[in-house]
């Protein structure tokens, strides 16, 4: 077996050194009834070529985003990632290292994390950021639990503009932890209704901008209202590129930012792995979940980095920890940091402007299609349209025409109404030609 270095002769010698007769002697602690002599009922080992054939066959049954005019978003976005990003994250020293527990031989990973934390903090306009969460949705759920710890209150108010999967994941966890979740009605401008729902029991208010319908909002007023009520404002961002163009959550008064970083450096991957960004005000630092990397010096006085404030974490504090997270999304954070380092502020702004411009053009093109109503007035790179046929059928029909035309809102939230609403996104990977193709395909489908 190509991944197993021991030769039969090695095995024999080693059993001799151990002083046992056979490998079975090392498994004596397994109860008799659970010992299996034969092989489990699965295929035997295969060569690379065979595995590659089998998996390529499966892969070929899928339609890659890059192979068609592509307009899906709803929390995962198709962006161009520079080739050097994927090249660098595959370096053995990054790919095959563990969480940097031994800082003397992990400065590579640690310095990257320090850069990542700084970039995330600066991008979100917050004081501190951690070294990544699994993804945006779990980051959001953790933010809610953190707000509960900080405020010692037990109610979380979700704007109707929060991505339904995020809401659902947070509700699932909240249910067990006795947090009451108030989920406001979904609406294009759902944020308008949030302030009224805040009361003295509210631990936190969760708003998303741009929201799931694409609406970009200034949440400063909500922040004020939340703070006035002694609650925290959690701002969710599912499209990190939007922060290149839009005001930062920090500037609008957020206490915690939970964001999906996938847009930067990470591919679509059918949903994962992604990278959760988690940032907060400085005074909340010690209530944050996840790893934190900090600067220090070595015995010779040279600058270096270590994982720090680990008394928050499960391996030290066990059932008193701020979170149970251990493995996070390190390599995706690396990809994020490299992509961001290549873009810089200048590139990110430009990228965001292009995304916005393509979305405006897409809006104009779709607006002109009979049977389409554009619902979202102010958006970044995604908006909602209403079609005169059911969204699910429209999207399926478009797929048959070779256009991946967006995500039916009802797929995210089947009971929410909106059966005729499609979320459509345009990024820099969408060409003007793609937009024309979409518009004509949609006219045909709706005809």
């Amino acid at each position, binding site marked *: 077996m190509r991944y197993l270095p021991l030769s039969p002769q090695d095995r024999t010698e080693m059993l001799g050194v151990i002083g046992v007769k056979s490998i079975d002697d090392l498994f004596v602690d397994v109860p008799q009834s659970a010992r299996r002599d034969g092989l489990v009922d699965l295929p035997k080992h295969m060569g690379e070529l065979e595995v590659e054939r089998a998996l390529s066959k499966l892969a070929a049954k899928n339609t890659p985003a890059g192979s068609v005019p592509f307009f899906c978003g709803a929390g995962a976005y198709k962006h161009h990632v520079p080739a*050097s990003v994927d090249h660098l994250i595959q370096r053995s020293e990054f790919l095959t290292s*563990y969480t940097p527990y031994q800082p003397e031989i992990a400065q590579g990973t640690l310095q990257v994390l320090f850069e990542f934390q700084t970039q995330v903090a600066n991008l979100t306009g917050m004081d501190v950021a951690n070294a990544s969460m699994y993804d945006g949705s779990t980051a959001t759920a953790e933010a809610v639990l953190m707000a509960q710890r900080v405020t010692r209150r037990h109610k979380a108010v979700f704007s109707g503009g929060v991505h339904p999967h995020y809401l659902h994941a947070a509700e699932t966890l909240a249910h*067990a932890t006795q947090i009451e979740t108030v989920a406001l009605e979904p609406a294009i401008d759902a944020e308008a209704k949030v302030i009224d729902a805040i009361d003295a029991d509210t631990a936190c208010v969760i708003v998303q901008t741009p929201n799931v319908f694409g609406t*970009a909002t200034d949440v400063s007023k909500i922040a004020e209202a939340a703070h006035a009520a002694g609650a925290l404002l959690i701002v969710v961002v599912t499209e990190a590129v939007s922060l290149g163009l839009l005001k930062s959550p920090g500037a609008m008064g957020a206490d915690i930012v939970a964001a999906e970083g996938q847009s930067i450096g990470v591919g679509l991957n059918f949903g994962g792995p992604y990278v959760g960004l988690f940032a907060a005000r400085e005074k909340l630092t010690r209530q944050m979940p996840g790893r934190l*990397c900090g600067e220090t010096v070595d015995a010779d006085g040279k600058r270096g980095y270590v994982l720090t404030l680990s008394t928050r974490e499960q391996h030290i504090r066990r059932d008193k920890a701020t979170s149970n997270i*251990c*493995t996070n999304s390190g390599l995706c954070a690396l990809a994020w940091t490299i992509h961001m380092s290549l873009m810089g502020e200048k590139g990110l702004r430009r990228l965001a402007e292009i995304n916005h411009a393509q979305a405006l053009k897409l809006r104009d093109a779709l607006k002109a299609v009979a049977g389409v109503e554009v619902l979202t007035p102010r958006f970044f790179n995604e908006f909602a349209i209403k079609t005169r046929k059911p969204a699910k059928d429209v999207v399926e029909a478009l797929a048959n025409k070779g256009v991946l035309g967006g995500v039916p809102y009802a797929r995210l939230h089947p009971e929410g109404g909106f059966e005729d609403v499609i979320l459509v996104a345009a990024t820099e990977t969408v060409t003007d030609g793609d937009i024309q193709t979409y518009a004509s395909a949609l006219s045909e489908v709706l005809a």
Partner: protein
Amino acid sequence: MTTTMANVGRPTRPEAASENNELHATLTGGRGLLQDEALIFELNAWDKTGLDLPEADRDASDLGDLVRKEPIGLPGLSEPEALRHYVRLSQKNHAIDLALYPLGSCTMKHNPRLNEKMARLPGFGDVHPLQPQSTVQGAIELMDQLAHWLKTLTGMPAVALSPKAGAHGELCGLLAIHAAHDAKGDAARRVVLVPTSAHGTNPATAAFVGYSVREIAQTPDGRVDLKDMEAKLGPDIAAIMVTNPNTCGLFERDVIEIARLAHAAGAYFYCDGANFNAIVGRVRPGDLGVDAMHINLHKTFSTPHGGGGPGAGPVVLSQALAPYAPVPWVVHDKDGFHLVEEERDVAEKSFGRMCAFQGQMGMYVRALSYMMSHGSDGLRQVAEDAVLNANYIKARLKDLMTPAFPDGPCMHEALFDDRWLEGTEVTTLDFAKAMIDEGFHPMTMYFPLVVHGAMLIEPTETESKQELDRFVEALRALAKAAKAGDVERFKGAPYHAPLRRLDETRAARQPKLKWTAPMAQAAE
């Protein structure tokens, strides 16, 4: 043909070899190929970018004052600068690809490159989680195949794929247990029993879902104390969480009895499956009475650890818990493969959703590629070689170091305590840092908590006998040096790493968690 140390390129006279270095500190602080490297924020790249993007042909005036005006604080490097920056940094890391990485409980095994290639096929890497399911039939089928392998290997009837790591899997398992008790109207069960030796995520997860944690004692031979457990089981116990093989690297001989007792008391048996590598293909947890067990695809099934993640923690479930599994999951009918995404119909009892979308597809592809490559025969061999390697290390070190549980075989990891260091002034930490100088990553230290100054060594099956011998020789030499009173070698270690020992106290006392401009620094 055997290798003599003298001709394999290692210095024949290490003392002599480094004698000269001392005389010649460099003028700029350079150290040959080891490049020091500033932070990206110190490279004067505020006004640059490493992307060539055309200008947008529509302006953003429609967004009015939503548009950000102030500078963000993000430098942009040209590609040559970025490449060099991250390549230089990478060279300051230890990695599996460099040498043995014996972090106990972490299963740092070889990460096959085929898996990386497969995960990058556009049909897997470039598909959107919410494309019409008709356009991702192969991706859903892959999830179904992975599920089949996991269920077959564990002998369990169901699996929830979506948890994003081991700890997330624990969360999933406990939420399923929570839901099952809820369904029975059994709200009184608010406690989870956890052995003291458990990984930190076990108690943390239990607390995270609102349970309180009660510890179970351990027997002198490193297993769950059945008596103690039985005494603590009662109508308030929701679940027991037991790791098997446990964190001492031992198989819980009484695991079937443990399960029986838990079930008899109305509790569920959550098994931490982080150590599944030791038994894959030889023992099926389903035969042991387990109700839920997470599998770290990034341990047993070789998806790369990536400096901290991402991982994936699918949870296999017993018949009792299966109905509560989180959405989405895969069903298969004559029309093809479908994702069940809603809590209704077949999923009406589902406890909810762990995360957006379907979980760690990138890891599913890698894990399936790994499983298909090994097959049923290769996977069994994995467990056997992992256990063989650990026992070999234990056998070769037991005369100099003190195994925590000397009697009987260990499983995939060899646990030592620090009794053998008594009187030497050298601590477990010092010893570990000296290993760095010899070219190895330290073992897991001070875990599990039940053993004093624990050193937990997990070689995995992907080490050659030659590398094991090299490792053993280094540890033996160090152990002898410690006993011979060569204390400075340990206290000051590491001497040969990119940095010397770091001041962790200072980092925690005055946390500096991001770069700030020198001006701002001065003002602090």
